[in-house]
């Protein structure tokens, strides 16, 4: 009963009434468009009048704010006059919610645009191949590069993923497939762990790995700190992905005599594969920009050290963080270049994750299709 009602209501556009005329639920009608346009124009005129003629002030931001306020007042009054108080409130709420939705996006565009604009001047191919060995604080910002930092970041994040991804996914498997007495408290602990501030993760590794075990600051210490931050992210997101695997598949496998291990490894995990990969890549994208734990753990360096196990190492975010606070213009410029590379890394990871995550579990890649064809299955 309820389901049929839902579907008919959801598909109102396809729901045919006797007259064979399609009914569309429309929030916005012609009147609204006219009212909005009119209000926008008159609000513009009014704020121009106030700004340029009455008050001796100027400024684009003030003008826009003024315009926005006048637009809201005028259009609300107009809607009120035409269609009553209820519609007017609806209209006002709509305007505010649209504004809020845009307010979340505008800073993102500004941030990315600003970093790109600041960073691209000095981005040269050698940024990826050279370190800062022969670079002084006063040499030109295009000299030298951040290869040592990029290598450090890739190694640290790589080791962190090697630790956290298997551990996180097995924990998610425990939470969702094995289940046991620990399930509930474990879920709470993982929630709590994902709230651990990144600097605290760094402090913990400093206390445990460096102070208590007597190691030096190195790439591996940074990896461990990143792993602490990475683990709860991977666990939570993979648990959500595993939960989406339909129970029928599990039951079918068990009913055919599959063991629990086989069910998980041959049915559940392959079904959730694209989701898991997305979860991991998004997690990497977040961890790759972490700076705070690295301040305490990697030590920082200006020369290439590709051995994460010993000696101080640099990381791209830490490189940016140190250089941006130098007084020399060239150093600050180098930091912006590093920031741009960092943003590009994050964006690339993000796009890859999106591209993979967009595919459903039944997606068959070109490679797989060929393999299936060879076996004569497709």
């Amino acid at each position, binding site marked *: 009963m309820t389901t049929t009602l839902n579907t008919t209501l959801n598909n109102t556009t396809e729901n045919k009434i006797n007259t064979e005329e399609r009914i569309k639920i429309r929030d916005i009608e012609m009147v609204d468009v006219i009212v909005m346009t009119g209000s926008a124009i008159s609000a513009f005129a009014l704020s121009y009048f106030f700004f340029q003629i009455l008050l001796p002030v100027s400024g684009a931001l003030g003008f826009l704010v003024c315009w926005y306020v006048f637009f809201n007042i005028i259009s609300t009054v107009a809607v009120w006059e035409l269609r009553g108080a209820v519609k007017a409130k609806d209209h006002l709420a709509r305007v505010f919610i649209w504004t809020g939705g845009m307010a979340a996006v505008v800073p*993102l565009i500004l941030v990315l645009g600003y970093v790109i604009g600041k960073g691209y001047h000095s981005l040269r191919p050698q940024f990826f191949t050279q370190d800062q060995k022969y670079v002084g604080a006063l040499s030109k910002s295009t000299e030298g590069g951040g290869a040592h930092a990029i290598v450090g970041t890739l190694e640290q994040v790589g080791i962190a993923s090697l630790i956290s991804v298997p551990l996180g996914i097995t924990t998610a498997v425990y939470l969702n497939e094995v289940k046991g007495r620990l399930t509930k408290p474990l879920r709470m602990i993982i929630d709590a762990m994902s709230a651990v501030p990144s600097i605290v993760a760094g402090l913990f590794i*400093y206390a445990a790995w460096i102070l208590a075990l007597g190691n030096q600051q190195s790439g591996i210490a940074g990896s461990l700190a990143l792993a602490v931050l990475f683990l709860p992210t991977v666990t939570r997101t993979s648990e959500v992905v595993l939960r989406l695997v339909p129970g029928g598949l599990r039951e079918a496998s068990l009913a055919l005599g599959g063991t629990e291990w086989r069910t998980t490894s041959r049915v559940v995990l392959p079904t959730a594969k694209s989701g898991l990969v997305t979860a991991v890549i998004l997690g990497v994208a977040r961890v790759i920009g972490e700076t705070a734990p690295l301040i305490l753990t990697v030590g920082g360096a200006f020369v290439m050290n590709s051995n994460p196990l010993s000696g101080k190492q640099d990381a791209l975010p830490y490189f940016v963080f140190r250089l941006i606070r130098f007084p020399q213009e060239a150093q600050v410029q180098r930091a912006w270049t590093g920031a741009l590379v960092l943003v590009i890394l994050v964006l690339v990871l993000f796009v890859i994750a999106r591209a993979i995550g967009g595919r459903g579990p039944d997606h068959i890649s070109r490679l797989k299709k060929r393999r299936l064809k060879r076996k004569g299955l497709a």
Partner: protein
Amino acid sequence: MSVVGQSAPSDIGTISDPDVVVHPVVRRSGVDRIFRSVATSSGVITFILMGLIGGFLLLKGYDALKVAGWGFLTDSEWAPDQGGKFGIAAILPFTVQIALVALFIAVPVALSTALFITEYAPRKLRRLLTAMIDLLAAVPSLIYGLWGLFYLQPRLITLSKWMANHLGWIPFFHVDNQYGTSLGIFPSSTFVSGVIVSLMVIPICTAVMREVFSQAPPGEREGAMALGGTRWGVVRDVVLPFGRGGIIGGSMLGLGRALGETIAVTLIISPAFTAKWSILDQGSNSIAALIALKFSESSTFGISALMAAGLALFIITLLVNAAASTVVSNSRSGSSTEI
């Protein structure tokens, strides 16, 4: 759902009796037992890790805590290496102030973004916006800090000045400075860092709220529509009451995140060690930023003191987050919304 259950054919007789729970006989192979124990032990490792974090911070911070005693909570200076007093009495209020400023901006924006995504946006825009919010969460806080320092701060301080001049009667905005209210006193303030931190809180709040809003019962939503309600009516009377737990919980998760934010705050603030009401003028602090700034110049004892501060931050974020998860999970059970 229950209707379907009752109307199902009842000729299965014995099994359909809801009181009889059927326990299937499970015979696990050796591989299965290994699999189960591996999965369980990885869960246990997570437990141990969490215990270790608290344990090591306490262990290494103990020296400093012993020296400071209760003064750790009541002193506002930070001079452990100079043999002076140290405590979080000034830093903690600053941390909370920054987080509250961030929430004050982030919660309304996140609320309307979540409503926009679930209720208002056309389908294509909805997917784009969801991706944008995810991206907002993926951009490193370092980048926000840089942007805030170089781009936003010079623009924001004119707003600070305006607020100090016109809203100075509110204690938070009151600026009492010998230089008057020239622009030079407004950078590196609690307000500026709070605004930057809000950008990092918005995605978290939005994600939680969006999830709860999208679970608002379609029956009640359609009922409200069918009774002639406007879209705002549906939002106000169905979606918002249903999602109240999500709004509170999401905001608290955001609070936890804001309290622990390090890099952006470190870049913006100039450290201050006297608590004050005013959020607009120069000088602020946070526990995380203190650790990041003082770490390299501290001796063993100084680091011990920082560990104690880190422990305090750890405990606070844990408490906030535990409260938030309880609120969110209670709201998700949706006991009052069954139709």
